[in-house]
Each structure stands twice: as C-alpha cells, then as structure tokens.
C-alpha cells in the first residue's frame, strides 16, 4: 500500500530515517572500533609478560622486573577492610530506609539526600578527606587500614542504593503476609525479605568491589606507594590501579609491566562483573517468579 501512496512528504521521511540510521550505524562502528583498538593495544602490550610467575612474584627493580603478588595482596586487603567497614553500615541504612522508617520522614530524607550527594563526590575528595582524617587525624598514617576506610566511605552510596533497590523489589504482599502471621519486623526481614533480595545484594556487593578495585585517586594519599608485601594493616600497600599509574608515569621502562598489570586488573574486574551479572539475572528471575 505504502508504495502506491508515496508522496513527497513520505519520501522526505524515508530519507530522514535513512540518514539517521546511517548516522547511528556509523556511531556504532566508531565506538566499537575505538574500543576494540584499546582492547587490542592492551592485550598486545600485556600478554607477553602475563604469566603465572608474573602473578606470584614480588615486584623488583621498581616494578620493571618481577611480578605483582604483593600488589595483589595489598589490593585484596584494602578491599577487605573497605567491605568490612562499609557493608554493615550500608546494609543497615538500606534496611532502615526501606523497612523501618518512611521514606518521607525528615531523618530518611536527610540520610537519602546526603547519600545522594556522597555518590557524586569525586574520588579525589575522598582521598583528601581520608588523608586528613584517617591518615593524619587518627594517626593511621599511610596504611592499608586508612586506604580501606577511605574506600569504605566511597562505597557507601552504591551499596546502600543497590541494597535498597533489592528490598523495594520484594512484593508488598510478602510483608503483608508476614504481618498477618504475627512476625516481628526483624523476623520478616531475615526470613522473608532477605532471601528474596539476596541476589540483588550480592550484585551490589560485587559492583562495589569492582568500583573499589579500579580506584586510584582516593588511595594515592591514603594507602600509599609501597610495593612490598604488607605485613600488617598499618603497612602501606600499593594497589593495582595505583601500580599501573606509577609504572606508566614514574618508572623508566615501566610500560610493559604496566600493560600486563592493566590486563590483570581488567580480567579481575571482568570476572567480578560477570559474577555480578549472574546474580542480577538470578534476582530478576526470582522477582518474576515471585510475581
């Protein structure tokens, strides 16, 4: 039919649609091209050095030789501290905001608003704060502990919002049934809500880990540059992202190990993200089944 009634107007619409389609396709080609270029560069630059030995050896000669085992250990320790500090606080906040107080109450609004602002605070500001508060004021110095606590502050908003989303997605009928059964709010939470929201929380947790593992600026002034195997939480420990920065900026001949470290970091984040997506998927399935 349309072929019979092709008028000038219709032609111009078709032309417009075609132009836009061409534009969109060229944008896609452009974007994928550049990104494949980056990935190709990283893999080409890093794969030569990447080996089991690279992962298990300590850095030598300022990182030009040897591996990154101590860097990985520091990264894991910083992450661990950050999560240990951030998880209880953020999950408590999320539970309070969704299950215990009205979202419109003054306290609720205030908490939510400050978390919203916190989510937008640039990481270098967290670095400044962590340096002034944890490192100097609390006397933790340049240490894994102060780096981890700084990261914990940074992770709060993302952990709270994902946990909140998980709880909010639980159908209201569950809560009503629990109340009808005479369950306390705490019992409802542990027996009914958390099991349903668990995959969402896990996904949020992994997102947070991913964010934290990629962080550089917040840790520059807090956990420091020492590339040694940390012996206590008060030792300074260089994290992987900072290692890449330092190798590429401050170490003559540091490009090859920087590429390899970048590749390790990306693979690490990739695995974390894949697991996170798996959890999100589980959660969505659960939600659908629940409804």
């Amino acid at each position, binding site marked *: 039919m349309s072929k019979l009634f092709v008028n000038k107007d219709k032609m111009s619409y078709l032309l417009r649609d075609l132009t836009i389609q061409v534009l969109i396709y060229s*944008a896609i080609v452009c974007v994928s091209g550049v990104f494949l270029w980056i990935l190709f560069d990283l893999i080409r630059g890093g794969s030569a050095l990447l080996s089991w030995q690279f992962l298990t050896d300590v850095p030598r000669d300022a990182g030009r030789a040897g591996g990154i085992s101590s860097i990985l250990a520091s990264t894991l320790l910083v992450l661990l501290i950050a999560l240990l500090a951030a998880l209880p606080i953020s999950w408590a*906040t999320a539970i309070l905001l969704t299950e215990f107080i009205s979202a419109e109450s003054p306290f609720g609004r205030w908490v939510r608003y400050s978390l919203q*602002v916190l989510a937008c*605070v640039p990481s270098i500001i967290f670095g400044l*704060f962590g340096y002034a*508060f944890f490192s100097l004021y609390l006397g933790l110095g340049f240490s894994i502990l102060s780096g981890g606590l700084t990261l914990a502050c940074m992770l709060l908003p993302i952990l709270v919002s994902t946990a909140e989303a998980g709880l909010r997605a639980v159908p209201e009928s569950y809560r009503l049934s629990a109340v009808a059964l005479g369950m306390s709010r705490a019992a409802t939470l542990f027996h009914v809500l958390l099991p349903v929201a668990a995959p969402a929380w896990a996904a949020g947790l992994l997102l947070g880990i991913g964010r934290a593992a990629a962080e550089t600026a917040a840790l520059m002034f807090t956990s420091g540059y020492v590339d040694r195997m940390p012996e206590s939480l008060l030792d300074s420990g260089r994290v992987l992202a900072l290692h890449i920065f330092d190798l590429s900026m401050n170490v003559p001949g540091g490009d090859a190990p920087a590429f390899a470290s970048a590749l390790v970091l990306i693979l690490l984040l*990739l695995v974390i993200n894949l697991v996170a997506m798996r959890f999100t998927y589980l959660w969505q399935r659960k939600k659908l089944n629940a409804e």
Partner: protein
Amino acid sequence: MIWWKHSISFLSASIDRWFSAALRIGALLAALIMLFILLFLLLESWPVLRHIALMRFFTDEAWHPLEDQYNLLPMVTGTLYASSGALLLAIPLGIASALFMIFYATPRTAVLYRRLIELLAGIPSVVFGFWGLTTLVPLINQWHPPGASLLASILILTLMILPTLALTSYAALVAVPKDYLQAAVALGLSRWGMIYGVALPAARKGIVAGILLAAGRAIGETMAVLMVAGNVVQHADSLFAPIRTLTANIALEMAYAMGDHRAVLFVSGLLLLLLVIALTIIAAWFGKTHHV
C-alpha cells in the same frame, strides 16, 4: 519462601526496637560522613580562608602558589571545558548506542555490542589514561602539537563516560512499555518517528539521570585527565591547548605542598565539592519540576 525450619518468630516483637536503633546508628554514620568530609575540608582550608580574601582565588593574576598567587579560575574553566566537551560527544554516541541495541541491531548483534559496552564500563579510568598517554597523545601531537591537550582529555573522558551513558539510556529505553511502541507503529509512524516521538520522551527521565551521573564522573575524574591534559594552568584558547582541571591540580601538587599551598589545595577540593553539590541540587530540582 520461608526456609527456616524452626519457629518463624524466633525474634520477639520487642527486639524490633533494638534492631531499629542499631539500624539508625548505621544510617546516621552513613549520613554523617558527608558532613565529616565537608567539615574536614573546611578545617584544612581554614588557615588560608582566614587570611586570604575569597575573591583572590578568582582575581589573582595566575596560579603560582609558591609566589603567593592563587587564581583557581583557569582550573575551573578547564574542568568545565573538558567535561562539557566530553558530554557533548558522549551523549549522542551513548544514546545512539542504546537505540542501536534496541531498535536497529539484530538480537545477536545487540547482545554482542552490549557485552562490549559492559566490558568497557569495567575498564578503570587509570587504564584509559594510560592508553591515552601512550597512543592518543602522540597521535594528536603529530596533527597539532603538543598533543597533551583539552582535546585529548575530552576524548579520554568521552570514552570513560560513554559506557555509563549507553547502559543507562539502554535501561531507560528498555523500560518503555511495549504497547507505546506498538501503538506508534500502528499509527503508521516511521522507525525514527517512533523513536523520536514516543520512545525517547518516555525514557527521558532515565536518560537525564544517566547524563547527570556521567557529568559527575567527568567532573570528578582525576587520574585519566592528569595523564593526558598537559596540566598547564591556563584558559584554553583552542582544542589543542593544554589545560589543568581542579582534580588534576590536587593530585599533581598535594604530595609536594606545604603550608598555605596545601591549604589552597583543600580550598580547591572544597570548590569542587560545592560544584558537584550544586549539580546534585539542580538534578534534584530538575527531576521534581519536569518529571512528576
């Protein structure tokens, strides 16, 4: 759903009060951190705020902290140029990516492309900076020296925020109810007519939220920009002029700064924070007035 084998009311109702109190402590801590950050930035910048007039940060001749000149304005414009340039590039590309995944690509291609974007969303900024330093800067330099420039930082920031934009726009567009689109097709709208007239307006709120998120990231990014921007303190007069952003200034000079110089860096941190808070307030206001 209830997998507990023993009594479901293992917690008595009276425990709720205690539990709630414990939760309040957590939430209070979470909310206090924001105040703490503000407080500490103020505390650290106080020595300078006390004896240097606020206007001097905008009217001094230049940024030479060791010669007692503290003009932060070039770094404010540097930050704004770089992030707005990146947004200008990334918004069309991001939305185009989202539209491609939903309306143009075959399902298989769409999934493939989405995996690529997700992969890129996971690349840390320092890796983008590293790539920019080793590949992009030399390239731009061949074209128009010195290479490390506003353009390089715009491009690197674009790459950084593009995945965020593409994924948030995608999520917003996917959430548009199918019947809207079916109705549009039934009305005889062309594909672009449907996208422009129905899908995009319906997804506007989510897309705007994504844009604001990306803007925050672009303004706050430190390491990637530090590596490629050239870091000269000046008002950029062309795309090829090097710039320094507020964040890069802090990262670059903090380790070396003492006394007033150090306090001024905290002042610039404060300035950055206020900039971001203003953005959040605008976003909140925007969300209220236009999307309820």
